[in-house]
């Protein structure tokens, strides 16, 4: 009987935990980024960059780190500097997982505030290729 009670208690606590709201930064990711990049960070790999286990590699170079914040849809996202920093950390360290280099510092509001004032406005495709080449040369991806 006691075992049954323990089992019921466990099932109940699991049910309650399953009904907890998602963390706020996760909700912001889903509403602003997840539609295209995918709920788990993967959607249509041939047309939309995969974030899962990949987004962190941009932190392997200083310019790659800056590039992520300067992407037009990131720089101009309708969220505060603080929330944007948390969103970037969620993407590169959370979804990006092991792709982020060990010891890479997290983004903060001050860094993000300065970089988002300089969004990329010209030939994003060419710039992206250069960044990716430099990241690979640095030993990431």
């Amino acid at each position, binding site marked *: 009987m006691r075992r049954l009670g323990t089992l019921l208690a466990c099932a109940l606590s699991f049910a309650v935990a399953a009904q907890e709201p998602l963390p706020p930064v996760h909700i912001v990711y889903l509403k602003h980024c997840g539609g295209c990049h995918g709920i788990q960070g993967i959607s249509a790999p041939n047309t939309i960059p995969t974030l899962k286990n990949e987004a962190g590699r941009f932190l392997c170079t200083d310019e790659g780190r800056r590039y992520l914040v300067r992407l037009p849809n990131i720089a101009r996202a309708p969220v505060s500097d603080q929330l944007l920093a948390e969103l970037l950390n969620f993407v590169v360290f*959370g979804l990006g997982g092991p792709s982020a280099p060990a010891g890479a510092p997290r983004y903060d509001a001050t860094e993000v505030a300065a970089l988002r004032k300089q969004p990329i406005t010209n030939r994003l495709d060419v710039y992206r290729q250069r960044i990716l080449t430099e990241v690979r040369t640095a030993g990431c991806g």
Partner: protein
Amino acid sequence: MKLNDFDRLSERALRGVAARSSRRGLLAKFAALLVAAPAFPLLPVSRAAGKGPARPTASGPAEHSAPDRGAPASVDAPAAPTPRSDFGAQAQADDPKACNYWRYCGTDGFLCSCCGGGVHTCPPGTEASPTMWIGSCLHPSDERTYLIAYRDCCGVSSCGDCYCNNTEGETPVYRPTRNNNIIWCFGTSSMEYHCSMAVLIGLQEKCAGSVHCLPAH
């Protein structure tokens, strides 16, 4: 009229008032006014907000559990509890073939549930798009707001049945990530639109429409 005449007239009037009324009586009337005032809302907006909408009952299962990756807790200031929208006031949770089914609060298109599929399944022969826009709808019975993925089924010409045009949570086309006029078939083998699904992907906040509960964030 001379100033002295005016003074005398004023004095006589004031003495008359003082002789006919008491300070206690005046205080009692003022206090009664203060107590009674809140019982009579003066503005029509206040009276309209006080009318509660009808609320059908049902429950909703989750089809997709999004991962929790241990994100930091601090974000922008908490939002105040939101009143029900026009859609929310009419929403129901019993009939997924009707436009006012609660998950369709942002649906613009033909309902897959009328086209041989379901709320979260594509009709046979069509392909579910890997891209979508994500909004949120208030469940009419449990007062919680859920994240809903609006996914299109593609590859076959338009279904033509059960057209709905709800707009809750959509953004203008210059903010395309949550625009519902876009055909969300990116990443499929064909951009031919057939119908729209509304996939439940997680809980956004508890007690969204109730003043008795604090919002979750």
